[in-house]
């Protein structure tokens, strides 16, 4: 049986055909969109031609200083994401290493992470105002608690034998965590971080729509007021592109630095 076929059950394929097929889906999507718009199946006022969206994006970048809003959003996302990560990684490790922290924090974290973040936005604005800190707070609320549990799971999946080997080689618990557990879980931790970073982009738009006078979300929301559909879609498109690029960059890093996998 030829497994090196795109149609074989759990078959393999070459990188080139993967890339080609992935591109096909994009082309198909854009073609469909163009047809719907061109023949006004959906009025162009609501669904502009793809080209109009690109044009709008270009106009926003060159004339409306949209690049600055992009940078602001990127900075907010990364700031909040790094804050979440810096806090979640040590706590997650502690929770997996010591029962006291695990049993103490897991139930409450599990509870908080099910609180809908959009519902918390008004509260966070009352607490933090409409400055930068409220946006960071929204993103932090939306990622920190999820990330702690992901990190805890990553750490727990490190084989028990690895830890026992650490002991019998003379390592102390702190050395086992640093040199064995953290190193063994690193690939899956990078995946957890990548997924969480993606969520940040959802929450930042929510936060910027509700209360902001800058950022991609703010631009999308203010364009809506004038029913500038191409501009609104250009804003959404920008988030999509940033997400795709970041994701691919982290995946590349993953392949490059975890070659042993």
């Amino acid at each position, binding site marked *: 049986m030829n497994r090196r076929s795109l149609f074989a059950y759990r078959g393999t394929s070459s990188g080139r055909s993967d890339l080609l097929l992935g591109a096909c889906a994009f082309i198909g999507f854009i073609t469909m969109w163009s047809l719907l718009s061109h023949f006004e199946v959906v009025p162009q006022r609501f669904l502009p031609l793809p080209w109009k969206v690109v044009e709008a994006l270009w106009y926003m970048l060159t004339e409306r200083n949209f690049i600055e809003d992009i940078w602001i959003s990127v900075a907010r996302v990364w700031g909040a994401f790094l804050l979440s990560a810096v806090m979640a990684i040590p706590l997650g490790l502690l929770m997996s290493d010591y029962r006291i922290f695990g049993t103490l924090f897991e139930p409450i974290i599990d509870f908080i992470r099910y609180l809908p973040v959009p519902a918390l936005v008004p509260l966070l604005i009352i607490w933090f105002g409409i400055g930068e800190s409220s946006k960071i707070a929204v993103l932090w609320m939306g990622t920190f608690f999820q990330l702690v549990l992901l990190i805890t799971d990553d750490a727990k999946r490190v084989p028990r034998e690895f830890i*026992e080997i650490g002991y*019998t080689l*003379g*390592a102390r618990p702190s050395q086992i965590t640093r*040199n*064995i557990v953290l190193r*063994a879980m*690193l690939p899956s931790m990078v995946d957890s971080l990548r997924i969480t970073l993606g969520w940040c982009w959802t929450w930042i738009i929510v936060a910027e729509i509700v209360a902001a006078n800058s950022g991609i979300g703010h631009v999308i929301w203010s364009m809506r007021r004038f029913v500038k559909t191409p501009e609104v879609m250009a804003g959404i498109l920008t988030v999509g592109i940033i997400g795709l690029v970041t994701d691919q960059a982290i995946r590349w890093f993953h392949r490059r630095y975890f070659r042993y996998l």
Partner: protein
Amino acid sequence: MDQDMPFLRVDGVSKTFETEGPSQAPIQVIDNVSMDLSAGEFAVYLGPSGCGKTTLMRIVGGLETANAGEIFLAGRKVTGPDRQKGMVFQAYTSFPWLTVLDNIRFGTKYRDDIGGAEKDEIARHYLELVGLQEFADFYVNRISGGMRQRVAIARTLAAGPDILLMDEPFGALDAQTREFLQYQLLEISRVEKKAVIFVTHDVEEAVFLADRIFMFSARPATIIEVIEVAQHIEGKRTITTKETEAFFHLRNHVRDLMRSQAKDLADAEKSREIEE
């Protein structure tokens, strides 16, 4: 240090595991086991699967605590795991993020008795001892299971333990690799002159490797017979040892012992089923 104290003394060790659930009674896995081992001796713990021999080895290694009894290694009471008690597991424990050589060098990482240059030297030495020079720069995911176990053995030796505790290290390997590694392990233990406790349920493996076999009963584990293999099979063990008459007789004797234990285990399970 007590002059009369042997290199390793296991003194009246018992172990009971608490089980989850309301109706489950605690399970006793080891019942008052005592044994001595002298320095450089190769001991095999042989017994039916699940009899508690691995648990006893883990207690010797300090990874489990006994409910009763004490362990003394080189005159000191065993209270927890450390570098003096090296372990090799059945599961592959070489670290995938390190190359073969770096894995072996990791064994020296927490040694404060030697410096960096000497650590490199030791890593190289054990790399050669297990014959993996050509694979020094390979990640361990790229080499075979047998090689991974050799890496694990070398890493453990590089830590400079007093005793080597091996829990069915060749259990997951194919017959040829297994035989090759058994032979290589004998060579290594001869060169290193280290005490070894080797846990297995494979009779041939036990007879081929051991100076002494400690034959365990079904759960709860007690030592039912100590077989002085070295008295029956004299001299250096080689590939042809397994074809000698002495080996053959001893193997049959040990196998019969194993069978009677396995039968006891089956009977016990059956009677429990009937009770339920």
